């Protein structure tokens, strides 16, 4: 007779080793670099030669650099605006795509193609498409499309937010589509009997029921927006001037173009802290996300 407890501990002993390969890889290329970046932020290194301790010099110079608040500002601007564009649209589209008609399935197939393209490909396409001399605007002879889209700071920021939305709205719509399909139909039937209209149903059933989905999607959007490196790097390279120089790009430029790995590591530490803080905040907002995973199962 094995009691449940000894049964469990027997199992634990036998399975523990199975976690080891993943743990080793993750420690080696995830945890060690995470600690490493903090250590490197207190050193001086040009990316090639020897690494020298530098005390708090990097921190002092980066924190005093007026470029830093600007980069943080641009990062948050892009994060918040792209969230504000993507969330309502993805919710609407996801709810619509959750319908079971066959044509909506086909709609979804076409809809998700941007998911397949690399950020580099998307950035290259939009760069050509928006070219003020050879792009779509001059080609169609449309004045309002013929702008120096990537050459003026306000416009360039708008373009980045639009392209981000173009790339990721399909993905988030898909998440919402799945969420909506898990809402029991009986809730809508009850609301119908009570005479609630569709708009009312959307706001009093769909949106509250999707609470955890909204948190998941928002977390992915917000933490993901810290990693828009490739898109912005290819599309604007941070320009014009430093109008779209987000933190990730700032880190790359300091580290791999100016060969100042110490200050670049300071930016990296800030990125990690911002990512963790935002993830915790969103988790707090929605209660525990792990609870939602069990509820949804």
């Amino acid at each position: 007779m094995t009691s449940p407890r000894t049964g469990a501990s027997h199992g634990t002993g036998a399975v523990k080793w199975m976690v080891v390969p993943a743990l080793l890889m993750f420690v080696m290329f995830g945890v060690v670099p995470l600690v490493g970046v903090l250590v490197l932020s207190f050193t001086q290194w040009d990316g090639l030669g020897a690494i020298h301790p530098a005390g708090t010099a990097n921190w002092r110079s980066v924190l005093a650099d007026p470029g830093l608040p600007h980069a943080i500002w641009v990062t948050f601007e892009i994060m918040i605006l792209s969230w504000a564009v993507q969330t309502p649209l993805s919710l609407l589209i996801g709810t619509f795509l959750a319908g079971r008609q066959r044509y909506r399935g086909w709609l979804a197939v076409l809809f998700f193609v941007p998911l397949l393209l690399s950020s580099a490909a998307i950035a290259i396409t939009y760069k050509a498409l928006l070219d003020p001399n050879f792009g779509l605007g001059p080609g169609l002879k449309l004045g309002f499309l013929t702008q120096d889209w990537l050459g003026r700071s306000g416009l360039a920021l708008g373009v980045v937010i639009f392209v981000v939305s173009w790339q990721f709205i399909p993905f988030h719509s898909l998440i919402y589509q799945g969420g909506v399909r898990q809402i029991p139909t009986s809730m809508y039937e009850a609301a119908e009997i009570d005479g609630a209209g569709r708009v009312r149903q959307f706001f009093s059933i769909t949106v509250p029921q999707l609470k955890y989905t909204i948190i998941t999607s928002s977390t992915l959007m917000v933490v993901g927006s810290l990693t828009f490196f490739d898109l912005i790097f290819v599309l604007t390279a941070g320009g014009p001037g430093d109008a779209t120089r987000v933190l990730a790009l700032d880190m790359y430029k300091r580290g791999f173009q100016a060969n100042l790995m110490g200050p670049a590591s300071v930016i990296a530490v800030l990125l990690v802290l911002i990512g963790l803080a935002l993830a915790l905040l969103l988790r707090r907002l929605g209660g525990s996300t792990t609870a939602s995973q069990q509820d949804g199962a």
Partner: protein
Amino acid sequence: MRKLARLNWFGGSAAWLWLLIVMVPLYWIVVTSFKDESAYFSQNPFALPTAPTLTNYRMVIESDFPRYFVNSVIVTAGTIIPAVGISFLAAYAIVRGAGSRFLAGVNGLFLMGLAIPLQATIIPVYLLIIRMRLYDSLLAIVLPSIAFAIPLSVLVLTNFIRDVPKELFESMRVDGATEWGMLRTLAFPLTRPALVTVAIYNGLGVWNGFLLPLILTQSPEQRTLPLALWTFQGQYSINVPAVLASVVLTTLPIVILYAVGRRQLLSGLTAGFSR
């Protein structure tokens, strides 16, 4: 379901409008890639090419794209197979060893990995790769990519393995099955859809990855497709049709895979994220 189905014309118009916004650039990429340079400058951008040409595609292929394609295949397969394999093992251990503080701690570590932006650790990864004498090799891209794929894979796979009824494990254990045996004959077949989804999702990320190849490789021989796109665009930025042909060629393999496995990808992603 009927009620849900006729829900809101507003969402419907948003979906159709956004579909148009999605399709217009895609259509433009494809038609333009078949035009020659002079047609590109003289024709209406949305008109079909009057004299379709394959010159652009020939030019891209002659610029060593087949080699970059092979590199991308090696990096993607070399990442995904081990990443999914070790993540599956870890997820199995985390579910079956519930109650172990060690495993709960490891799981917490992986979950923390979800909240950390990948780019932030790139400088120490670069240092590590240099010290391992792997700089400018495909393995340099593969190793960190495996590590970065682990957190999400483990999260999705634990959710799926948790859905396997405990009684099935219990009855197999009573029959004398080892954990390894249960993993192979019970957990693996029942979570196969999730494994495929995780593989496709991570595969897309690695195939389209830009930062790791940019920082960890240097020579054209080690270039992967997104990086090749970028350098090609730098060289031929004036020749828009050729640049767009390179975009089509790098995306085509994924579109074909998508056409074959879309049901799997879409339903799997839905199930994986919407819990």
